């Protein structure tokens, strides 16, 4: 299934590169004329999520996206997308921006134009709590069976280490793999691990051990879009005005925010 998707993506990209050619006018003007900024995201606490019983998207990214929309003078519409298709969604103008705790990998940077990084993150190894002490170093990981989100930063780290893994379609499913015993371990975002595993969460028997890297979150736009500059300017101003840190504190991510 994943292979088919990947193939479809490649095919579409190849065809579209051939078909493109004519460059569009200003992306910023396009969004302003339309009057709506369509934000592609997934359910990913604490960046984008809904409170129990509420239909409104909140979270650090969601709140900042709304502020950005206000700055541009347009409405903001959130669309929950299939993460695998984010590049296609952008390019076909189904959405205008990918803003969802997106790690700036080489792959992401090649598929879209990205903002300057705004948040720090890392990939961590998650294992069952009762065996955690055996897996505190990178060397001890060989021999474990892994799960990771397809095409994610975590998957990239595992590939760099030469470790095999099962690709699943969300980080949450990677956690489920470990919880159900289907895999020994998984690699997910530090931010997500902090929020979803350990005591007081749905996965009390899981914990994280080795941090494999450190990385940065950014916002993705269409290739060559002038929205990138508009975003960077907006963010600098919002940071200087203190809005960024205020919002970060609401969702407990203030320690990860990159200073401007």
């Amino acid at each position: 299934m994943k292979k088919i998707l990947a193939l479809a993506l490649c095919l579409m990209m190849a065809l579209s590169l051939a078909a493109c050619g004519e460059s569009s006018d200003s992306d910023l003007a396009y969004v302003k004329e339309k009057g709506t900024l369509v934000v592609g995201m997934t359910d990913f606490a604490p960046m984008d999520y809904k409170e129990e019983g509420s239909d409104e998207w909140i979270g650090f990214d969601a709140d900042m996206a709304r502020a950005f929309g206000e700055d541009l003078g347009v409405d903001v519409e959130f669309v929950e997308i299939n993460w695998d298709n984010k590049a296609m969604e952008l390019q076909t103008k189904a959405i205008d921006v990918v803003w969802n705790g997106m790690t700036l990998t080489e792959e992401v940077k090649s598929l879209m134009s990205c903002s300057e990084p705004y948040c720090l993150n890392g990939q961590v190894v998650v294992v069952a709590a009762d065996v955690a002490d055996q897996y505190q170093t990178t060397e001890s990981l060989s021999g474990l069976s892994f799960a990771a989100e397809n095409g994610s930063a975590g998957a990239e780290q595992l590939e760099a280490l030469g470790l095999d893994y099962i690709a699943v379609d969300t980080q949450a499913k990677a956690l489920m793999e470990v919880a159900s015993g289907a895999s020994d371990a998984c690699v997910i975002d530090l931010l997500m691990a902090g929020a979803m595993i350990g005591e007081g969460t749905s996965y009390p028997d899981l914990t994280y051990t080795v941090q494999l890297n450190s990385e940065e979150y950014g916002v993705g736009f269409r290739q060559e879009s002038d929205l990138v500059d508009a975003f960077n300017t907006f963010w600098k101003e919002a940071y200087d005005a203190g809005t960024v840190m205020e919002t970060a504190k609401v969702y407990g991510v203030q320690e990860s925010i990159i200073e401007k």
Partner: protein
Amino acid sequence: MLLDVTLSLLEGFGVTVQMFVLTLVFALPLGLIISFGSMSRFAPLRRLIQGFVWIVRGSPLMLQVLIIFYGPGLLFGLPLLPRFTAALLAFVINYACYFSEIYRGGIQSVPRGQYEAGQVLGMTKPQIFFKITLLQVIKRIIPPMGNEWITLVKDTALVRVISVYEIIWMGESYIKKGMIWPLFYTMVFYLAFNGILTIFFGWLEKKMDYFK
């Protein structure tokens, strides 16, 4: 909690049922037209239709959904269809092709003598089709149709690749909140719906039992 989850899954299931019903509404008649095309005596039309049916039946439905939604934007920079509409279009085309093959099998399995008996009694072609062939075709295609309809119910789960929020999507969204059971709970909805379909087709088969 169970009630909340049930309500939210029902919302997704509404989309599933809509996709199912609308696909049938458009694909059943379209399939008949395609089946006539694939049996046409005009060879170029017949080959064209057969080639089209081969492409649609020979490639994954998921790919067709992706192509119909993203294709116009990627290839020509055109505005996209709404997500649900794009998914529906892909499903209608795909299922019309499957239905056309079922119709064709049904129509061709009616003995030639039935047409000839109608002809020598002075009936017109439409009279022969509607008064003699059709009901015999319907009787013959009920079992394969039943299979297709049940497959269709399950295939609707594919539309989530372009973010149409059907029941599996709703179920999966709970995984992110650390709840795994809602995803598996969706099975109850599928089973109930397909149970109704099974009973319906059983009843229909019985209803057609008066002739052989």
